[in-house]
C-alpha cells in the first residue's frame, strides 16, 4: 500500500521520466529537422533579414554604408517614377492575366471536343509555353521593328496601317501583353483542360435530358465546375505577371522613356545599373508585401470557388 505522499512522489518521478523521454525524443527529431532548418535559415530567412537590413541603409557600391532608417521607404513613396511603375505593373498584370485566361478557357473548351488530329494540335498549341522567354522575346523584338518587322508587313497585306508596336509609348504595353498572351495562353489551356477532364459528366447528361441548350449548360454547369481550375490558373498567372521581367527587359528595357517600366524593371535599374543597393532593397520589401497581399487575395477567392 502506498500513502498519498508516496503516490505523489511516484507520480512526479513518472512525470519526470515521461518528460525526460519526451526531451530525448525531441532531441532525436531535432537531428532530422535541423538540416532543413539550417537550409531554410540560410536561403530564405537570412536573405530576407539582410534585405530588410540593407533597405534601412544608404548603401551604394564603392561608398560607405550609412544608416537612414525608413528614409528609403519615404523616398519611394515620394518618387513619382516608382508610383507610376506600380500603376503600370498592375495595368500590365490585369491584361496579362485576363487575356490568357479568356483565350485559354476558350482553347480548353475547343480542345476538350473530339476532332481529328486533336493530340497533334494540342501539342502545337503548347509550343510557345515551352520556348525560352528571352529567346522568343528577341524574335518578337525583330517582328515588332517598324520598318523591317514582319508584323507591319502582315498588316500591310490586309490593308491596315503600320503600327509602332513597342516603339511608341501608347502601344508598348498592349504589344508586350500580346507577347505574354501568346506565350501563356497554353498554360491556362492545360490547367482548364485538366479541370474539364476531371469534371463529372452526370450533371451535363441530366441537363441535356432536361433540354438545356449549349450556352445554358456551359454557364450553369461547366463554368462553375471548372471555376476552381480557372482560379488556379488566375493565381499562377497573376503571380507570374506581377514578377514579369525577362520579356519586358529583352524587348524594351522599360522604354520608350519609362512607358513600359514596371516595378521589376525599376528595381533592376536601381540595383544593377545605379548600384543603389539600399533603395533597391526597399523596393524589394515593398513589392514582396504587394505580391503577398495579392496572393492571399487570390487564394481566398480560389478557396471560395472550390467545389462544394
Amino acid at each position, binding site marked *: 500500500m502506498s500513502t498519498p505522499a508516496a503516490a505523489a512522489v511516484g507520480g512526479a518521478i513518472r512525470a519526470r521520466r515521461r518528460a525526460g523521454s519526451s526531451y530525448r525524443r525531441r532531441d532525436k527529431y531535432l537531428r532530422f529537422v535541423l538540416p532543413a532548418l539550417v537550409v531554410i535559415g540560410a536561403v530564405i530567412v537570412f536573405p530576407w533579414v539582410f534585405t530588410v537590413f540593407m533597405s534601412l541603409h544608404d548603401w551604394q557600391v564603392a561608398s560607405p554604408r550609412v544608416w537612414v532608417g525608413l528614409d528609403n521607404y519615404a523616398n519611394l513613396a515620394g518618387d513619382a517614377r516608382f508610383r507610376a511603375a506600380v500603376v503600370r505593373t498592375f495595368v500590365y498584370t490585369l491584361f496579362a492575366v485576363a487575356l490568357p485566361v479568356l483565350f485559354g478557357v476558350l482553347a480548353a473548351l475547343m480542345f476538350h471536343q473530339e476532332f481529328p488530329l486533336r493530340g497533334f494540335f494540342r501539342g502545337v498549341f503548347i509550343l510557345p509555353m515551352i520556348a525560352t522567354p528571352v529567346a522568343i522575346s528577341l524574335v518578337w523584338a525583330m517582328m515588332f521593328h*517598324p*520598318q523591317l518587322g514582319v508584323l507591319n508587313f502582315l498588316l500591310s497585306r490586309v490593308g491596315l496601317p503600320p503600327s509602332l508596336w513597342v*516603339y511608341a509609348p501608347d502601344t508598348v504595353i498592349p504589344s508586350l501583353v500580346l507577347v505574354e498572351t501568346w506565350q501563356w495562353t497554353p498554360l491556362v489551356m492545360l490547367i482548364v483542360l485538366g479541370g474539364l477532364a476531371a469534371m463529372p459528366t452526370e450533371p451535363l447528361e441530366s441537363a441535356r435530358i432536361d433540354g438545356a441548350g449549349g450556352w445554358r449548360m456551359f454557364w450553369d454547369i461547366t463554368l462553375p465546375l471548372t471555376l476552381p481550375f480557372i482560379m488556379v490558373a488566375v493565381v499562377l498567372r497573376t503571380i507570374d505577371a506581377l514578377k514579369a521581367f525577362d520579356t519586358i527587359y529583352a524587348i524594351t528595357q522599360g*522604354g520608350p*522613356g519609362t512607358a513600359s517600366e514596371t516595378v521589376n524593371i525599376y528595381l533592376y535599374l536601381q540595383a544593377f545599373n545605379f548600384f543603389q543597393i539600399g533603395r533597391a532593397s526597399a523596393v524589394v520589401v515593398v513589392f514582396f508585401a504587394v505580391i503577398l497581399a495579392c496572393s492571399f487575395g487570390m487564394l481566398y477567392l480560389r478557396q471560395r470557388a472550390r467545389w462544394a
Partner: protein
Amino acid sequence: MTGAWNRRQTRRRFVAMGAGMAAAGLAGGRLGTMSAAELRRAQAAFDWKRYDGESINVLLSLSPRSDLLTQYQSEFEELTGITVNADVVPEQQQRQKQTIEFSSGNPSFDVTAVSWHVQKSLFGRGRFLSDLREMRDDPTMTAPDYDVADFAPAAITFATHADGRLDTLPYNIDYWILYWNKELFDQKGVAFPQTLQETLAAAEALHDPGNGVFGFAARGLKNANVPVWTSFMQGWGVSSIDDQNQMHTTEPAAIEAATLYRDLLANYGPPGVVGFNWNECQTTFSQGTAAMWFDGIGFATPLEDPASSRVAGKVGYGLQPAGPVSRHSGSFGDGIGVSAGSDKQGPAYFYAQWATNKRNQARVLAAGAGAPARTSAYSDPEALAALKVPREWVDTLVASGEIGLPSLPAIVPVTEFRDTFGIALTNMITGADPAQELESATEQFRPVLEQSLQT
C-alpha cells in the same frame, strides 16, 4: 577629384593626340604572322616566361576588339606560358558583373576591360583596380619595346586619375562621326553638312518617307541617347557638367542642342526612333533607309560588309558637324586593368601589356574594329595595307582625334545621369518641350550628383 581630372581633358590634349596620330611613323610588326619564338628573340633581354605555368581569368566585353584579343590569345599563351581563360560577355552584363564582383572584394577575374566614360570614376573611388605605374616603370615587368610614349597623350590622360594613379592601360578611343549615304546625297544633290544647322537642312532635303528614306537616324532609346545630345552640346562650347561639377543642363546651349536633337529625330527620324539603340540605327542605315546616322566610329566593318549591308561601298564617313561656337567630336574610351584583389598581379599585368602592345593596336585598326590609343597604329604600313574598310574612315578617325573631347561627364553616377536625361530626351521626341524637360531632369539629378560628391 573629378574636377582635377576633368581639367586635364582639354582640347589641347586631344589635339595633341590627333597630331601624334598623324605624325607618328613607327614601323609596325607583322600583324598575324610573327611567332612567339620570334617575338621572344626580338626581346631577348626580357623574361616573358617568368610566370610560365600560371593561369589567369580575363573578363572582356563583347566587341570586335575583344574578338581580336581572343583570336590571337594563343600568341600570348605561347609567348608567356600563361594559360588564359577569357570570358567575353555583352557590355551591359560585363559592367554589372565587374561592379558586383569588385564590390564583393573577391572578383573572379584578374584582368578586365574598363569603359572610362562609365566606370572610371566609380572604380577609382572603390580602388578596384591596381595602380600599374610601378610595374609599368619596372624594366623587369615591362618589355623594352612596349613604348609607353607611343600612347597618345590624351589617351594616357583619359586613363589617369586626378591623384596620378594609372589603373588601366589605354586600348581604344571611340569618336562619334556622321555616317552618310553617298548615293542618297548624290540623288538629291545635297552636300555633306559641315555644321549642325546644315545637318538639319540636309535631313529635311533628304527626308522622303514616301519612298522609305528618312533624313537622320540616331539613338532615341533612353540612356543610350544621351551621348548624342552631349556631343551636340560641345558644338556650343559647353559640357553638360563641368570640371567643378556644375551642371549646365538648363542653359541656352543645352536647350538649343536638345531642340536640335528633337527636330532631327522627331521630324526626320525613322518611325519608332524613340526606341532605337545603335543596333536599330545600324540596321536602318545599312538597309539604305536612313540618309545619315550619328554614332560611334566602330561600325565601318558591318556597314562595308556586302553580305549584310545594302550600302556597302556607298558610305561616307564624316566628322561631327560644327556647332555655332566650336567643332568637337564626342569621345569615349576603354582601357585594360588588373583587379586589385587578384593574387596574380604579374601574369595579369603581362596580359594587359600584351593586349595593348603595338601589334594588337595595329590589328584593331586593320580590322576597322575601333580607334587604337597608340599613335603608331595609324602609320603602320601593314595595318593600313590590311585595312578592311575605306581609307576615308581612317582619315576621319585621325581628324576626329584632333577635335575629340570626352562627351560624358566624369562623375560617379554617370548611369543615373544618362537615365534621367535620356528619359527627358525621349519625351522630347514624343512632343515634350525641351526647356521644361531639361529643367525637370536637372532638378531630379542634382540631388544624386550632390550626394555622390559627399561620399
